[in-house]
């Protein structure tokens, strides 16, 4: 259920195929829901909104203001829009592709961090290249990045001669806010099939997201990452970043203010040639500090259980899902709550970080008896994973004991892993199982990814103090 970032990669060919299939109904749905009238409901409908919006509007006499604006926007964007390609160091084969927009007269380009992450992390294996809509290409250098908001600045090593004539994208002034329902236009090169303009709707900010993101109702596809999203004046309001694969046209944009902040501090920087990990760790440490501070400031929510108070987070920037098994089960009865953050920070293909998750299960084992309940609880306690082996993190190391808080004794395990390449960052998991009663209990788990050791301890302590035993009323 996590958003999926959009670099089109080696499997682009396959993805394109799958998505083309998926997109047939999608494009039609879009026409219905956006109430775009009168595009002929033909099998060709899937082409209509995206690829051919700019040139294929022969039937638009009645609606020329809508389609004309898409054409106008594309005309504005066309000279300043680029594809950002990650190539293998010694070959011209592309490893992944994204999009970018020209924002500085010296050839400065705004894109996503995840579009350039391979080059940032492994410059000895990859290099960056750009290609404009009119086919001009050249090398790019990494200038600055904001890993938390998934933004990066790159600069053309040798800007083309006509760079001055191309003009720059401008940002929509922060003072003029968009209204929900306003039409905005996403530009980019999906799946490396060609540059497109996608009309969509601004739907405000994503709710309960720790990192602010714009909710864009429009079809984003892999390869469009890093492309600009423009208002009807052609000013950047956001940057394409992610989409939800379990929904339709639920897409996410990085708000322009973060891009402007990155440009303000990074535009004049020299190309990054060395190791980016220290700077990345610094940015992530700032993020985790804000996250920890905000999280700890929130009180735990009330739980309705007769005997247990369980730490359940406020849903300010987390989302909780509940489930339970059928009450006519003859075995263990349980209720489960699963809370997590929507935003995780992309580091590389295998590593997302910078988020929290809290879950618990309340057990009623009265149908089992004490011994079998203990057995079931132990089974559930034992099979908790503490993280797969990866290159990015060390193996977990745990501390365990009986812990009592507010009258509730628990068996508690805390496991930490350190980031191998991001010094000072840790993942922490706290697993706690009540051991006060013979046939009922609660098992809770708290996870924080990418926090400092001190904050890991702080969060663990905060979490454990959310447990309590309640006297029955």
């Amino acid at each position, binding site marked *: 259920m996590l958003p999926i970032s959009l670099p089109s990669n080696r499997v682009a060919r396959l993805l394109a195929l799958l998505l083309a299939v998926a997109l047939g109904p999608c494009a039609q749905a879009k026409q219905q829901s956006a109430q775009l009238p009168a595009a002929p409901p033909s099998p060709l409908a899937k082409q209509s909104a995206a690829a051919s919006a700019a040139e294929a509007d022969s039937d638009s006499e009645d609606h020329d203001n809508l389609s004309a604006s898409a054409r106008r926007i594309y005309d504005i964007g066309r000279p300043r829009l680029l594809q950002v390609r990650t190539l293998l160091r010694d070959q011209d084969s592309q490893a992944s592709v994204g999009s970018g927009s020209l924002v500085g007269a010296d050839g400065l380009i705004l894109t996503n961090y995840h579009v350039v992450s391979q080059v940032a992390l492994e410059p000895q294996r990859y290099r960056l290249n750009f290609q404009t809509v009119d086919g001009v290409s050249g090398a790019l250098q990494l200038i600055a990045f904001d890993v938390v908001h998934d933004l990066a600045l790159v600069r053309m090593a040798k800007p083309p001669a006509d760079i001055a004539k191309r003009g720059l994208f401008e940002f929509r002034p922060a003072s003029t806010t968009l209204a929900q329902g306003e039409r905005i236009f996403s530009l980019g090169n999906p799946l490396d099939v060609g540059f497109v303009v996608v009309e969509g709707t601004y739907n405000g900010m994503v709710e309960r997201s720790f990192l602010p993101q714009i909710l864009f109702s429009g079809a984003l596809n892999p390869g469009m990452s890093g492309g600009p999203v423009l208002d009807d004046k052609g000013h950047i309001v956001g940057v394409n970043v992610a989409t939800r694969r379990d929904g339709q046209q639920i897409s996410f944009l990085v708000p322009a203010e973060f891009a402007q902040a990155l440009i303000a501090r990074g535009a004049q920087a020299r190309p990054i040639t060395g190791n980016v990990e220290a700077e990345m760790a610094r940015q992530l440490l700032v993020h985790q500090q804000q996250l920890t501070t905000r999280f700890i400031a929130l009180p735990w929510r009330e739980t309705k259980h007769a005997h247990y108070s369980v730490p359940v987070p406020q849903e300010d920037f987390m989302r909780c899902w509940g489930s339970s098994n059928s009450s006519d*089960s*003859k*075995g*263990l009865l349980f209720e489960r709550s699963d809370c997590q953050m929507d935003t995780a920070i992309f580091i590389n293909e295998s590593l997302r970080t910078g988020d929290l998750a809290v879950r618990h299960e309340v057990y009623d084992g009265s*149908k*089992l008896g*004490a*011994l*079998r309940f*203990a*057995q*079931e*609880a*132990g089974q559930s*306690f*034992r*099979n908790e*994973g*503490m993280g*797969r*082996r*990866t*290159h990015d993190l*060390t*193996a*977990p*190391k*745990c*501390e*365990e*004991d*009986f*812990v*009592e808080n507010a009258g509730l*004794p*628990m*068996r508690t*395990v*805390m*496991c*930490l*892993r*350190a*980031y*191998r*390449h991001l*010094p000072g960052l*840790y993942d922490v998991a706290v*697993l706690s*199982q009540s*051991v*006060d*009663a*013979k046939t009922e209990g609660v098992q809770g788990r708290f996870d924080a990814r990418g926090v400092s*050791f001190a904050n890991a*301890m702080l969060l*663990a*302590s905060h979490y*454990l*103090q959310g447990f309590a035993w309640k006297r029955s009323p």
Partner: protein
Amino acid sequence: METLALIETLDREGQPRQILRVSQWPVRIGRAIDSDVVIDDPHVAAHHATLEWHADGVRIVPAATINGVRLGRATIAPGSSPPLPASGLMTLGATTLRVRLASEVLAPEQRLVDLHLLQRRHATTLFVLIAVAAVWKGFDLWLSTVPGVQGSTLVWNYLSAPAALITWCVLWAIGSMIFQRRFAFWAHLRVALTWLLVAVLTQAVAGQLAFALSLPAIEKLGRLVFVGAIVTMLWRHLALLLPSRRRALAIAIGGAVAVGSGLLLIDRSVQQQPLVGDLYLGTISLPGLRVVKPVSADAFVKSAAPLEKTLSHWARPGDDDDDEESGGDDDE
């Protein structure tokens, strides 16, 4: 005539195959039919050795042969004629002879073991073992089954264990048949039951104790005992097949276990896993079993402080080089 000695030709199991009474010295031994002791062994010469009477006792005088005469592992040097060893055993070619002298002091008579009583005692032990195993298996099944499971499923589950055990013991008994000429099913069943019960019960008790005292080390110790018991079981099975090789088998199995666990330890240490057992104690038991007092949340978190040093040491660059590309999902 007075019998001065007996010369027994022994078979592979050490039982006399042919006995010759000696009434006069010397005695000639060889394959030729004019020998006093005729040995039909192609590795024995026509005239292989002579036993002679000297003032200090019987001496062995080997003839000039290819294979010579061995006393234990040592071959008698050409030209020498050593006295008969105390055991009276000597090997000519591939044949072992034992010489018993009339002058030997006999060992005292030994009391006969009451075989019937012994068998009854064995049968009682076996019965107790089977009963304990049956009860344990039933308890274990009951513990891990939620109510409402179909009865026939339970019966299948219950019977699968004795079926597997019987198959196991039958296979070993066939081994005994090959090496010992007897189908020692009950002996193997006893070995298997004894050590399986030791393994399973120790592990269960260790888990509960570890929970009660909050000492995960006890559970890890239980796992070691488990492995030890299983290895011992294998050794005992093999010892029933080759009783005369018990020591050698113990050394071989011990060596294999040492090498195997050494490699395993190195592997786990490279992968930064706990050397024995799981990442944490997975046993949850009855609330009343807990003996130790719980600590406060803050004290618990404080006790985790040393993890920082270990983990930052683990995260040092270079530590992950050896397991690049080997990352697997097998940990879950």
